[in-house]
C-alpha cells in the first residue's frame, strides 16, 4: 500500500504506479490536465514512464473560468 497526497488530500493505492495509470484511476483520462510531482512538472510525454511512490505529493490542475 502506498500513501499519496493528491491536491492536498490523502489517497491510498495498492502499489506504486505510473502517472498515466494514476490519471486513469482518478477518472481523468482524456482530460486536459497538468501534473506536478513533488514541486516539479511531469510533462505529458513522460506520464507513461514517471512513477509515483509512497509519500509523493501531487498537484493535478485544470483551466477554469477566471479574470
Amino acid at each position, binding site marked *: 500500500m502506498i500513501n499519496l497526497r493528491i491536491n492536498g488530500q490523502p489517497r491510498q493505492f495498492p502499489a506504486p504506479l505510473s502517472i498515466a495509470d494514476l490519471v486513469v484511476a482518478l477518472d481523468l483520462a482524456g482530460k*486536459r490536465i497538468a501534473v506536478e510531482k513533488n514541486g516539479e512538472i511531469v510533462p505529458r510525454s513522460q506520464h507513461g514512464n514517471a512513477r509515483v511512490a509512497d509519500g509523493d505529493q501531487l498537484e493535478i490542475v485544470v483551466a477554469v473560468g477566471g479574470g
Partner: protein
Amino acid sequence: MDSLVIAGRAYSSRLLVGTGKYKDFSETRAAIDASGANIVTVAIRRTNIGQDPNQPSLLDALPPSQFTYLPNTAGCYTADDAIRTLRLARELLDGHSLVKLEVLGDPQSLYPNVVETLRAAEVLVKDGFQVMVYTSDDPIVARQLEDIGCVAVMPLASLIGSGMGILNPWNLQIIIDRLTVPVIVDAGVGTASDAAIAMELGCDAVLMNTAIAGAQQPVLMASAMKKAVEAGREAFLAGRMPKKVYQASPSSPTTGIIGT
C-alpha cells in the same frame, strides 16, 4: 488596420476579457462572443477528483483554437506560487508561453504586491515566458517591469472587482507616456464609459471580467464594452479638441445674423 500587438502577435480586438463569475459556460461563451475579445484569461486550479468526469469544461466552451488563452496567477500571494502556477499552465496548454502574472498583497484589497511581482517577472522572463503583468499604477514599478522584459504592463484602474472606474488617470497617463510596451488597464472598470476613458487616455487595451459578468445582462454589457473600447480608441487616434476653460466658441457663423 489598427491592431493590438503583444509580443509580436497582432490582435484585432483591444478588449481582453476574463472568464470567471458567469452563471454557466453558455453565458460565458455568449458574453465573450459579444465582446469580440481575442484574448481570454483563465485560472489554473486543482481538479476536483471524484467529480463527474463528463462534466463540461471551460476548454470545451472556449476552444483554445479560437481564442488566445491567458492563464493567470489569481490567488497567488508569493512569487514562488505564481511561478509554479504558470509552469503548470504552460504544461497544461502545450507549451503556451503568454501568461498573466499577478501576485496579490492581501485578500481584502487584492492589491498587487509589487515586490513579489517584480521577483516573479524576472524568473518567468528568464524561463521563456511572455509575461503580461498586473501591477499598481506606480509609474516607476511599471517601468521596472518593462525593463525586466514583460511584454505588456497592466496597471489597475481601481481594485479588482470593485467597478470603481479610473481613480487616477494622471498616473496612468505617466505610465502610457513612458512605456514602449503595450499598457493595458486591468481591473476596476465598472461600465462602458470607464473603458472609453482608459482608451482615450491612450491605453493600448482594457482587460475586464466583473464589469461584464457582474452586469444585470452580461451579454449586453459585453457588447457595450466592445463599442466603448472601439470608440475610446478612435477618439484617442482622432485627437480630441483642446479644452478651453472659460472661453466658449460658437459653432455657427457669427455673421449674417438677422436683426443686426
